[in-house]
């Protein structure tokens, strides 16, 4: 096993790093048409260091719970491994999903892929159609009224 330390304040062994990549790709794989990246292509560790440092030790326990065979498993077996994690410790897995989705759905390439504007809503805002108020004609035709009070 090569225990190379990667360049981050939060060191992962090479094995842990590979496990993380496989796990993230199991959670959100790349889309078949290539428009959407996989979660494994994004830098979860840097995101957590900046936004959710308390989750880093939890992430380590998740990676350590994946056995060494995970490193040589097929994508389908990675899916089964992730499924086992979700059953073994649902609360911890839920937090993992939260962090992975938070990273993924802020990524500009992802937002572009789903047709949403990257960046904050303010100040550009959004255009919303005013809507056809003639749709109210049937409501007025029914001539219902508020309840009278004695």
């Amino acid at each position: 096993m090569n225990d190379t330390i990667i360049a981050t304040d939060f060191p992962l062994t090479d094995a842990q790093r590979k496990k993380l990549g496989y796990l993230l790709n199991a959670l959100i794989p790349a889309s078949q048409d290539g428009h959407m990246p996989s979660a494994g292509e994004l830098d979860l560790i840097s995101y957590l260091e900046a936004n959710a440092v308390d989750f880093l030790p939890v992430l380590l326990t998740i990676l350590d719970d994946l056995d060494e065979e995970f490193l040589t498993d097929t994508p389908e077996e990675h899916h089964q491994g992730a499924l086992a994690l979700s059953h073994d410790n649902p609360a911890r897995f839920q937090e993992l999903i939260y962090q992975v989705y938070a990273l993924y759905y802020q990524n500009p390439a992802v937002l572009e892929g789903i047709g949403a504007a990257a960046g904050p809503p303010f100040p550009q805002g959004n255009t919303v159609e005013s809507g056809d108020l003639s749709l109210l004609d049937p409501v007025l035709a029914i001539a219902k009224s508020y309840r009278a009070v004695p």
Partner: protein
Amino acid sequence: MPEVNLNDPVDVLIIGAGASGAAVAWSLADTRMRIVCLEQGDWMKPSEYPTNGADWEIQQHAAFNIDPNKRGRDTDYPINNNESPISVVNFNGVGGGTILYAAHFPRLHPSDFKVKSLDGVADDWPISYDTLDPYFTQNDRMMGVSGLAGDPMYPPKQPPLPPIPMGRVGERLASGYNKLGWHWWPSDSAIISRPYQGRDKCLNLGPCMSGCSQGGKSSTDITYWPEAIRAGVELRTRCRVREITLGKNGLADGVIYYDEDGEECHQKAEVVVMACNGVGTPRILLNSKSSQFPDGLANHSGMLGKNLMFHPVGSAQGVFEENLGSHKGPQGCCILSKEFYETDLSRGFVRGYNMQITRGTGPFTTALHGYATGRIPWGADHHKTFQKHFDHVASIGILCEDLPELHNTVTLDPEWADSNGIPAAKINYTLSENSRKMLKHGVERAEEVLYAAGASEVASTELVQMAGWHLLGTARMGTDPDSSVVNPWGRSHDVKNLFIVDGSIFVTAGGLNPTSTIQALALYIADNMKKNLANLFD
């Protein structure tokens, strides 16, 4: 007007700078009395609201979470919801709950004030819709309300601004209601659809419920407060009231509060006005014990903290083939239906509910909610199911009238406390059988509408847990001092210079968002105080 020294007595002390505290402060300001408002939270900075940042959705789950127990702000007080299927939602700061509310702004109906007479349940209010009508109008002007006149389900009224856009979500759902022959109408919204009183119009940012960066949403920090302060009212932030003190004459003589540095201060006052909502107000009064009031101030009736009413909320979400652009536009305001608002005993329950059409959510929340509900799995099908939902959903919230019941209470928690050591509020609440039946009926009708509108799939939640937005009834209004806490104009039966102006004085809840009615009540009470200044304590 000169600023008041901390030790100087003031004429009127208002506790809480939210929806009702702002309205009462503004109205009383024209008396030129010395008025101070104590608010435990801060002034909000619009530049810090989530929609200024790319991480806006994450912030909705963190510093701007609607759950005070999760926000992690020391300006909040904890609320023990462990004995309630519905959790309290609130915000503490200048603007109070209007900072995070959806700004859905209907008025209660005339029938809501006469529930006992009409349906034989609960109690009638000692005032009527007509009593509040001029104050509704005044409040609509002050807040800046957008809507469409002519709704047959209301007496005539004219919102000052045209309605906010329905969008494709509103049109799609409207077609469903029309197919069924059911009532719907564009929502009255405290969101400005045109430039109004120095504020620019709504930009359709989307997530109103984490603060409005644009200022298109009418929270009281940008509506009432600037005018009240210009008129001489002093607003002190980071001042947390512990208790109201009682003088030898049996009148309230001020409050003890903690300032920003945690120093204990005593502010004397001739009149004390509570505006802390249906949980905060009983919490302070229950904490204000004395030999005269061993069970809490103004509580000879024993009604303080009892009859807590929420609006139990159910929801149904439809998925449509058409891209509805549903994450754009004010999330909680679109159209509403009052088809099932009034009592029809053949439905198996008394009273009714409104159906509030809401728009979709942003990408992260869509994915997270989809995971939680099992509709958007992680794994190979994630992208396909995500795309099917994102911008393709419309939701209907079922907002039910809750009836007052003595066993639904706000009390002081024996163990939990806020950062100043003041006991926290504890909620004991049981969902009634009537509410259960109403929720079930409402969710089934919502599913019916969504399918009629063309939804390919519908998923429902019969009771939304994190939906205790509306906190009502815990210091009810009435003519009988043995069964109510305040009189028909908000004055305590027991303590003649203590007034309550927030949602705790509601006798019944109606089945509609209450902020419009809360503020109309506050203006009505302030007006009565002004008319009776010469003999206010008689």
